[in-house]
């Protein structure tokens, strides 16, 4: 049995941050679209300082996401950003691009580095490689299955983070695909938002019941899963294996929904660690989540129990 895992939740505003911490989150992930991708909202640097003060008072951690693939033009301002984050006293930075790792190591070596290469963090050995480069945590790809995740725990020299709830990104392009399509159709897009708040989604001909959210921002086009992961029923397997951090994805969800989900996972984690041997899953937890779940989005085990071929 491992240590009690952290419950990590992305927050889009100070208000959300307060709500989520009150609901039982141990850590929040924040940032802004300029550096971090697929965040539920933007935090300016001043807000980040405030978030840190608020969270640290409650013994919670604040991580900032710089998980985008950077182009040359951003390297200079990245240095400034990291300097300011360091002053703000944040606890960790999520990165995918080696340029971020190098910059943080150089400017703010006290900040922990969480390697998050999205769908490409797929094995323990590569995670350990980033460990030797200074990373202290790997954010595992959401396409891994339960066996892969649990088997790699004893092999990892660094902490691991697993997404246990919410939607996942399934496609990211630098192209503005919705904009292109609308232009092709001759539809006006000027001024109209194609961002998250627009509620755009794709439906594929043979899967009429699955809605894949799609949106554009300064990082290009993002397509999201049609289902929401919910590993709650089998959370104990992950807890027993020693996963260090559980992430609940809050993107595209009202905060009331997220609040409920956080409370339930909090309860499950606490119950388990009071007495792991006699832990029993409470059906009512699942019911509470189902009551607030968007009926058009299936709760699923994601890839946890899927067999993939290639």
């Amino acid at each position, binding site marked *: 049995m491992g240590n009690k895992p952290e419950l990590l939740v992305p927050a889009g505003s100070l208000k959300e941050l307060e709500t989520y911490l009150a609901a039982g989150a141990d850590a929040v992930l924040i940032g802004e679209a300029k550096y971090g991708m697929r965040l539920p909202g933007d935090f300016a640097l001043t807000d980040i300082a405030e978030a840190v003060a608020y969270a640290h008072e409650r013994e919670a951690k604040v991580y900032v996401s710089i998980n985008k693939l*950077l182009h040359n033009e951003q390297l200079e301002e990245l240095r400034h950003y990291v300097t300011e984050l360091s002053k703000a006293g944040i606890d960790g930075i999520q990165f995918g691009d080696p340029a971020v790792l190098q910059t943080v190591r150089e400017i703010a070596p006290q900040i922990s580095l969480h390697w998050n290469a999205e769908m490409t963090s797929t094995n323990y050995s590569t995670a350990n490689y980033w460990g030797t480069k200074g990373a202290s945590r790997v954010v595992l790809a959401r396409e891994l299955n339960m066996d892969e995740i649990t088997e790699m725990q004893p092999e990892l020299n660094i902490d691991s983070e697993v997404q246990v709830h919410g939607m996942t990104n399934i496609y*990211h392009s630098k192209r503005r695909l919705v904009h292109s399509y609308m232009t092709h159709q001759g539809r006006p897009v000027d001024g109209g938002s194609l961002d998250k708040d627009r509620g755009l989604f794709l439906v594929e001909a043979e899967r009429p019941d699955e809605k894949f959210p799609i949106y554009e921002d300064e990082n290009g086009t993002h397509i999201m899963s049609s289902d929401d992961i919910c590993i709650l029923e089998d959370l104990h397997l992950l807890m027993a294996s020693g996963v260090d951090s559980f992430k609940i994805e809050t993107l595209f969800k009202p905060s009331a929904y997220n609040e409920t989900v956080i409370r339930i996972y909090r309860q499950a984690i606490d119950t388990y660690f009071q007495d792991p041997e006699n832990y029993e899953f409470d059906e009512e937890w699942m019911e509470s989540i189902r009551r607030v779940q968007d009926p058009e989005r299936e709760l699923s085990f994601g890839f946890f129990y899927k067999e993939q071929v290639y």
Partner: protein
Amino acid sequence: MQTAEKHSPKYTGKRHRLEKPELLAPAGNLEKLKFAIHYGADAVYIGGQKYGLRSNADNFSFEEMREGVEFAKKYGAKVFVATNIYAHNEDLDGIEEYLRNLYEAGISAVIVADPIIVDTARRAVPGLEVHLSTQQSTVNWQAVKFWKEEGLPRVVLGRETSLEEIEEIKKHVDVEIEAFIHGAMCSSYSGRCVLSNHFTDRDSNRGGCCQSCRWKYDLFEDSRPETAWISEEEAMGDPVLQQFQLGVTQLPLFEEQDNAFTMGSKDLCMIEHVPDLIDVGVDSFKIEGRMKSIHYVATVVNVYRQAIDSYMADPDNYVLKPEWIEEINKAANRPLNTGFFYDTPDHEDHIYEPEEKAAPYDFAGLVMEYDEATGMAVIQQRNHFKPGQEVEFFGPGGTFFKQVVEQIWDEEGNELDAARHPLQKVKIKVDQPVSYFDMMRKKK
């Protein structure tokens, strides 16, 4: 191509390099390897039995690799192996041994995405060069520098990199830059697409991609109020919610007659911009397509070979030959564009219309022998052809002519009404001299 007038040639003439860039071609199997090299590739990249991203291609055994390397050597060409999966736990055992075997087979470099394979190669087989795969989506100089410091002499950039950015990367880091300059491309950042995993349980980052980005989709807008499914009572009386209760929950963003939404991209083609690529410092011109036909590889390689040679021989008087573009179009499977080199692709760079897949020409026959005295050639049949049909002959360096096939004889001298059998050797009279390994194509 619609791109020629879209951009001014702002890079041309800025700097003339002394070193010729490498022309790097795909080779899906041993035969394609031979064609790619004979038609002018300085290097080819192939897939081995493991760790590659083309799980469907007829990948090379070590034996075939050795044969390929032998063949390449005669031309002074090199053979690289794509070892570019993102490994899962179960793939980790055996990487070292596999890399050693590649090295022993005479492979010059491996193209790698997963850092643990990079690390393993550097540690266990230091003689084997490691090139960072485009799957890493490396698009800035600092990341390039990171990989150089890890011991990599070459980085294949993400396809999202512009010419301007390449120039800046070259300024900051002394490293070889390889760029895709021709062929099909992911419309996502490479490695950052798991559509296939979601739709078909096939892992795209281990070679299972089923091109879901080219499927057709309908685009809608959710018209439900954000909280509708959370607190229905609260929203009572709300006009938006009333609509929701009437069952209008989504608005289609397309009309009946519209083309569907897709992420599918046109194919990359930089034949009109070879000087720009050379001038910003691209060290290796990479052609995509290990699954493409012999005809495709030979045609495309042949054209870029001529363009590069012609520019390097006399940069100031370089002219883009219209026949190069014609040739490229004879092999093209899709409409073409210039990717991210000049601009972020927009509505003209995606394929919304139904696709006509097939290239307009077929490989009809391969020249095996030529008798100067009689003007007779021995042709190995690769596709059905018959007397009266117009065909084109082409070979390395720009040999090219059209003619009509007259009589066809088999090797015993019997006249045939058509060349019907695959690999059958037949004789025909050719209008101009041809050489061993010249190709004969026909319109489909």
